């Protein structure tokens, strides 16, 4: 079972896509150009503080708002390994899966979580935080297929005979 440990950033309820990456930066050429502005309306200093392998823990409705796929791409480019939230907005959820960014729903962790602490995630099983275990559900099969293919672009390349299994 895939397992990883990471430092946690705690964000609140209804973290919308305008907070994750404001519209004024969406027309920049690359995700790498944009990523320094990630979360800037809420926490301008955050993007520079995130390190590879960090984890976001948030409240309900994470990723609500626009369909901009730059939002999960910016989060992934900043090095975030996965997001655990009470719930996710649906377009953001699909966009994240299609880019191989792992999202996990967990109802209780957010209420207990202190920023800066570390947690250990065992995919499709549970989260360990200071010895306490928080169960997590498995992803639906059709989404696992996309993730296992390495995202939707890879799945389509394979379909079109450009990549091998």
């Amino acid at each position, binding site marked *: 079972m895939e397992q990883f440990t990471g430092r946690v950033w705690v964000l609140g309820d209804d973290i919308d896509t305008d907070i994750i990456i404001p*519209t004024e930066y969406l027309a920049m050429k690359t995700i790498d150009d944009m990523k320094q502005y990630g979360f800037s309306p809420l926490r301008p200093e955050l993007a520079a503080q995130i390190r590879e392998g960090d984890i976001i823990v948030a409240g309900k*409705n994470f990723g609500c708002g626009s369909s901009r796929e*730059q939002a999960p791409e910016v989060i992934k480019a900043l090095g975030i390994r996965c997001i655990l939230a009470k719930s996710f*907005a649906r*377009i953001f959820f699909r966009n994240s899966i299609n880019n191989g960014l792992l999202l996990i729903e967990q109802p209780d962790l957010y209420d207990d979580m202190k920023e800066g602490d570390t947690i250990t995630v065992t995919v499709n099983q549970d989260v360990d935080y200071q010895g306490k275990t928080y169960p997590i559900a498995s992803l639906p099969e059709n989404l696992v297929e996309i993730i296992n293919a390495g995202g939707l*672009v890879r799945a389509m390349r394979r379909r079109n005979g450009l990549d091998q299994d």
Partner: protein
Amino acid sequence: MGQTVIEKIIAHNIGADSVKPGDIVTAQVDRVMLDDIMIPFIVDKFKEMGFPKVWDPDKVVLIYDHLVPASQQDDTRHFKIGDAFVEQYGIKHIHRSDGICHQLMTEAGYVKPGDVVFGTDSHTTTYGCVGAFSTGIGYTEMAAILGTGTLWVKVPETIRIQIDGRLPEGVMSKDIILRLIGDLGADGATYRALEFCGSTVEEMSVSSRMTMANMAIEAGAKCAVFTPDEKTAAYCGIALDAFQRQLVGDADAVYLKTMTYRAEDFEPVMACPSQVDKIRNVSELEGTVIDQVFIGSCTNGRLEDLQAAARVLDGKQVAPFVKLIVTPASRKVYEEADRLGVLRTLAEAGAIITHPGCGLCCGRTGGILSDGERVVATNNRNFLGRMGTSKVEIYLASPATAAACAVAGKIVRS
């Protein structure tokens, strides 16, 4: 077992007798909408996926709206990439300066009742106003549709919203949908469909229904749908066929829940900074001083919205310290408002009338604000930083309320 409207549309699309919530199906896409912000990313992903051609160039509509006219140096790059894509793949439909994508998709006849439509903008839910199943997606999924003509869809549960009676004077469909978002919460309809019914929505114009379907996403909804009727047929310039005529929720359909409202109970409301579900009656906010008013967007930039504002502003003057920005949703709306003297009324009252497009709604053209300033706006989102700095306060309201606030220089009822 009866079916909800969305279940009927999806079942028809996949050639099944029926579907039920939770079913994962592969939909055959009737139309897609690509917008200017996303086009470079769509083209990159499409090429990376290795498709030799677009599945059906007649089903693809590319619309430049967020970035028109360009306000940053890099913006025209998006138009160049879009134009090259249209040329290379023989895309049949492109609008370069005709207005907002969601307005054009129904106004120009690209969406019909019962269609399944996807767009790279979250307010693609708007097309439920004519009885289509439509929702927003990301650019990677759009690229996959351009190659395959299909997309997987999980059949949503449906929340039925029944509204009967006559709306009070000064109350618009915007006040209804804002109240509903407040009642549902910003995530209250996540993964779900909203189905509107009752005498109030039957009486409504297609434009008023657009406002409500447009904002369904602000409660997290996957889509929102109105039963197509004679008004829909006239708006779309078609006669409804047998399939389209039966797009009504069956009496024995299974709904997640039904919410029932009396039209007479609605009153003018606002969504307060900075959450779409922080709804207050305008009467509770009266006296709050404002700096700017924005009337426009795919939510409320149509002729009836400008007319509602003009009725309030006729013979009056915008408060001297307030900038009133009016942005028609499309070229057609602009021309009709001009022909009917609506623009003249607005201009004489002191409005700044801009070119059709997304305008201030996404904070990418003139009118952005700075710390401590307040704006009353008719668009759909009041998120942090949407119209300037993160310390700008955005209040969402109907065009009638917004116009009244512009005159008073503070929040008031129309």
